[in-house]
């Protein structure tokens, strides 16, 4: 199915507040809420980095789709942890609802365990809004 969730201004502001409180204030460099068509819905940055978020979202949507297809081939519904670790920066992917992804870019100063906890909290709060 192909559907797009429509957001009004207030929803976007509320989502931004949640992402700011739960993730940016924690020390995360950049968060992107996007759909699986590769559209950027919300993007927040802490000011330390400036990424090409549109290209990132396009690639992330493709990557997520490919990984989900891999999961299906081996009989899994999905892989719950999707995470790319770099020497300095890492990317964490998380599904928010069907068709929506949350991408988090963070550096060594943020622990993966704590990040996963905060991402889960943020997602719970966003799910209530949409």
């Amino acid at each position, binding site marked *: *199915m*192909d*559907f*797009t969730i*429509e*957001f*009004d*201004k207030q929803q*976007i*502001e509320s989502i931004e507040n949640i992402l700011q409180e739960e993730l940016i204030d924690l020390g995360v460099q950049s968060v992107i809420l996007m*759909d*699986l*068509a*590769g*559209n*950027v*819905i919300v993007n927040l940055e802490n000011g330390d980095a400036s990424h*090409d978020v*549109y*290209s990132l979202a*396009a*690639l992330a*949507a*493709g990557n997520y*789709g*490919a990984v989900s*297809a891999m999961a299906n081939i081996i009989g899994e519904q999905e892989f719950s942890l999707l995470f790319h670790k770099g020497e300095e920066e890492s990317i964490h992917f998380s599904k928010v609802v069907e068709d929506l992804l949350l991408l988090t870019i963070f550096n060594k100063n943020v622990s993966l365990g704590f990040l996963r906890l905060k991402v889960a909290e943020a997602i719970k709060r966003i799910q209530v809004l949409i």
Partner: protein
Amino acid sequence: MALINPKKKEVQVKIVYYGPGRGGKTTNLEYINKKFKKRIQNEMVTVKTYGDRTLFFDFLPFDIGEIKGHSIKVQLYTVPGQVKYNATRRLVLRGVDGLVFVADSMDLRREMNIRSLQNLKENLETFNKSIFNIPLVLQYNKRDLEEEGIPILSTDTLQRDLNSRLKAPSFAASAVKGDNVAATMKKIIALTVGSLRKKLE
């Protein structure tokens, strides 16, 4: 569906270049990237396989200015053309707003064009979309090959093979030389953005 952000007053529109392998989809994007360099802030992204063919997609984001107070961000994608990459093609088609079908004018590729268009139709159906209702432009590429003595299909034949029922706007083009590449792109942007106008009011 295009994504409208009412807070930033921004619209993201996804346009996909579809067609048989080695038909010139990537060449279209490369030409646009070069020609409109000043208006393109980001680098073109391309995921290629061994042998320089598109594995996943090419991606070129592009600002085209404002319509009804909204800034319009057009995102051009290509799909891998080879038959075996259908799963990837379907992934790229997700959320598509407008399509350019790049047909290969070479005589030898007649059957491939027809099959690829049929494949597009079927893939759109998996997203509950109809090829007859989506903004679509056809491009008959590689017209320049005629000068080199390579047998090519006449535009009449291509029209009959591909466009007799669709009746979409079509362009004879040469992506390598840049002939009608911009015209194709402008047409699909106009059609796609035109279909959104109502939503923006």
